[in-house]
């Protein structure tokens, strides 16, 4: 549904996006993560035909960017980083305006549908400037969906929202995912990306990694199982180290952390070995590295490489 090949954008001497290549399948929620100034918004602008790439190709919903821009705009909805509203106009008037620009057939019907869906119907006649941040965000989400786009581009959808409003928006995005919409989402909220995204791309001018969150964790950290014991973990680390498939063993107090490839197959062997050695096992679980660990690892690595190159 979204494809980019060697997409590049320079503003004068400033290289904002460096040969980005990726593919997002239909129905997928794709997370695009990166630090401030990484080029995420520039990427979205290129994919939605708002700005022209310096080189490279891309297509969205089957339409070629740069040649079928109008078709792309008809089939893509965008929630911009700074989602502005016409503050003096009512919620209804704001949406009606955009529905007309998007050539929606049943303007009033579609506006009513989304205002009701997002819980804004009761305040439809009030100026958008009187809305809270959460309500404004819901209104701009409605605006992005009015023309039933095949692809949604969301740039920081929960940025600046309180926890309740952020949860509402996340739940709504989850609902769109269940409907099978293709979503390309930029976010700084890594927990949100971990929860919602099928795959993520970590980006800082160029693509640093692209895969599912679990695969990225495995690639960087492998898989780890933690055993909570009644006794001190140090007593049993030697027992586990001798097992051939064990990659690494660490212990902290009564916790034993063992790195393995396939916990599903190898856990029973580890449990048997520990029990036979006299360990009283209280809990067994897989250590879940946070997406934040993955992201920081990748971004820091890239920064160190860049610094080494410059030095």
């Amino acid at each position, binding site marked *: 549904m979204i494809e980019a090949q060697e997409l590049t954008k320079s503003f004068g001497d400033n290289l904002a996006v460096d040969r980005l290549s990726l593919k997002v399948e239909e129905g997928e929620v794709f997370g695009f993560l990166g630090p401030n100034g990484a080029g995420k918004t520039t990427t979205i602008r290129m994919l939605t035909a708002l700005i022209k790439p310096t080189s490279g190709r891309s297509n969205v919903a089957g339409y070629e960017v740069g040649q079928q821009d109008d078709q792309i705009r*008809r089939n893509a909805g965008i929630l*911009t980083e700074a*989602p*502005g509203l016409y503050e003096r106009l009512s919620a209804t008037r704001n949406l009606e305006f955009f529905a007309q*620009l998007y050539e929606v057939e049943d303007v009033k019907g579609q506006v009513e549908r989304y205002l009701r869906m997002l819980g804004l119907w009761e305040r439809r006649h009030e100026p958008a400037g009187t809305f809270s941040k959460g309500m404004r965000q819901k209104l701009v989400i409605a605006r992005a969906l009015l023309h039933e786009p095949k692809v949604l581009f969301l740039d920081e959808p929960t940025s600046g929202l309180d926890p309740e409003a952020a949860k509402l928006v996340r739940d709504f995005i989850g609902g769109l995912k269940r409907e099978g919409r293709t979503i390309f989402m930029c976010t700084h909220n890594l927990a949100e990306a971990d929860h919602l995204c099928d795959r993520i791309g970590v980006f800082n001018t160029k693509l640093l990694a692209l895969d599912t969150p679990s695969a990225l964790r495995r690639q960087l950290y492998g898989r780890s199982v933690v055993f909570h014991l009644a006794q001190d973990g140090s007593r049993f680390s030697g027992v586990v180290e001798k097992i051939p498939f064990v990659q690494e063993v660490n212990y902290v107090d009564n916790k034993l952390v063992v790195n393995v490839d396939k916990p599903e197959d190898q856990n029973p062997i580890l449990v048997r070995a520990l029990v036979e050695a006299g360990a009283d096992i209280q809990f067994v679980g897989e250590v879940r590295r946070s997406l934040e660990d993955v992201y920081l690892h990748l971004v820091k690595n890239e920064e160190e490489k860049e610094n080494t190159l410059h030095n």
Partner: protein
Amino acid sequence: MKKIWVIARKEWAEVFKNRFVLFTVAFLPIILTALPLIILGVTGSSGEMGDVSDEIPSEFVQLCNNLDGSECMQYFLVSQFLLLFMLLPLAIPVTIASYSIVGEKTTHTLEPVLATPIKTIELLAGKALAAVLPAVIATWGGFLIFVVGVLFLSVGPGVVDRIIDPLWLITTFVLGPLLSIASVSVAVMVSSRANDPRVAEQLSMLVMIPLLGLFFGQVMGLIFINETLVLWMALVLVVVDAGLIFFATQLFQRETILTRWK
């Protein structure tokens, strides 16, 4: 065309909720139309003036032809306000366009609009129409009220005949719209750099300097506005407008707006 009207209607719905813009569009024509009529009323009640040829410029006396002294004086006085019907089509679009364009910048609404299938020229045309049409209606409406007012307040029919001659008609119905187009184009260019609508408006008002020069030149007797001058002004404005529209269109491209309009 449909989207141009969608843009224009949205502009009117939004911009006219701003009291300052509403005041400029509503009261400026009223004041500039009422002023010459008040002068007419006052001079009309002052009685027969006799020979006024020593009190007004000789070029103007020639225009008076078969008008008597009072009619000639009245015609001379209201002629000074001819330039007001050029001021309206300059001032109103500047106010509307500045608030419209800079307003979109400060509220970050341009990008979502550019993300729709609207063509950039449709967006620019819609904003220009939203600024020009009220100015043209206000100017033409003000002129019609002025003509009716002169009909009732002038000392003789000769004054009315003079103000519906080609000079006034070309000024109001040809120069007026051309001035509006120039005004909007300047406002677009200034607004691309300004971040406050009042600053944009004040800078764009510099477009009135040539007109003010004309006004003071006329008051001091250095310039005499006649049909020839007005026709030349119209021709020059056609060329100037074409150039301004070209530059304004270049500045109103999607990529330029998103990357250079800060």
